[in-house]
């Protein structure tokens, strides 16, 4: 059985994560789109920590007899991997878009300069 302190500590920490994520959304520092995965992580870990019998049962499925909280670590790491992978896709998209933006600005600047010289290079 999981030590009680581990259950309590795990549940409190995971629930704190949920609250922090909600507060970040509320104060417009985190978009809902990027928060969903964090929330699922926090809620799952909270549930697994608090529901001691459940954790035991799940640990049993995987043949973990000595230390059921190992399941918490495994699930936690799995979610962290998912979040990281998600962020990698987000960063890839952002860098692609950044390239497009830079190119558009270069083209606009060129058009602007051409327009200026066509109108006699009038400075304001």
């Amino acid at each position, binding site marked *: 059985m999981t030590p009680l302190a581990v259950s309590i500590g795990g549940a409190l920490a995971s629930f704190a994560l949920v609250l922090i994520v909600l507060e970040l*959304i509320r104060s417009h520092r985190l978009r809902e789109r990027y928060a*969903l995965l964090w*929330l699922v992580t926090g809620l799952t870990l909270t549930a697994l920590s608090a529901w001691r019998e459940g954790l035991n049962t799940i640990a049993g499925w995987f043949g973990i007899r000595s230390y059921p909280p190992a399941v918490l670590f495994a699930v936690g790491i799995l979610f962290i991997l998912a979040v990281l992978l998600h962020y990698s896709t987000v960063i890839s998209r952002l860098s*692609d878009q950044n390239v*497009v933006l830079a190119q558009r600005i270069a083209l606009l600047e060129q058009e602007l300069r051409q327009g200026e010289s066509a109108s006699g290079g009038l400075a304001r």
Partner: protein
Amino acid sequence: MPETAEQGAPTAPPAGLGELRRVAIVPALNEELTVPRVIGELRAFDPGLVVVVVDDGSADRTAEVAAANGALVLRLPFNLGIGGAVQTGFRFAFEHGFDLAVRVDGDGQHDPAQLARILEPVLRGEADIAVGSRFAAEKGGYRSSRSRRVGIRLLAWIVSRIAGQRVTDTTSGFQALNRRGIALFARDYPHDYPEVEATVMLLRHRLRLQEVPVSMRERGGGSSSITTLRSIYYMAKVLLALFVGLFRRNVVPQEETE
């Protein structure tokens, strides 16, 4: 009550429109087939309307076709999603000092002839935003997949509870807004699947919303941006946004200094 327009029959623009600077915001994504008709119908409804097509990174000739049909075109360098596209239009309307904006989708499902009805409450000063609702009427001419209808109804119910006002169609993009509405949306507009959150945002900022029964047409081309799988994600996202929105302090926007 505004007189009910015959469906599809062009109706004259309501009185009091002439003095206002007014703009039509038309978000379009790969809509080259339907955009010319939408622009034409908007012009036919009200020749004084400035039509702005926001091309949300289309792969087809949407931007060229829109420009050739006399619309102003805001061409986004890549796809921002409907919320980002529509907000581009609101920013344009705000910065260029428009008094009145209507939003009409580029896919042709909104019939500009029905704009007269949607404009009425805003022109009479009874609403800051008027929304064409498919469900406000006794029998709507709106056909859609069953799951989608259920989703729309569920969202409408939740939004009604949060907002304290009966809202029947939270996903309608067929809207008319006055300067206050334009100012709010130019500053802050939700991102994907934005209309639901925008409705709550409006009401929490104490803007007056009225729904007007309209019927919508079959989509003229393209496909809906919302597939079944994505709608689950959207539902979760929107519910989260609505829930968190409850705990936000909302500033009531000041009256514009004219």
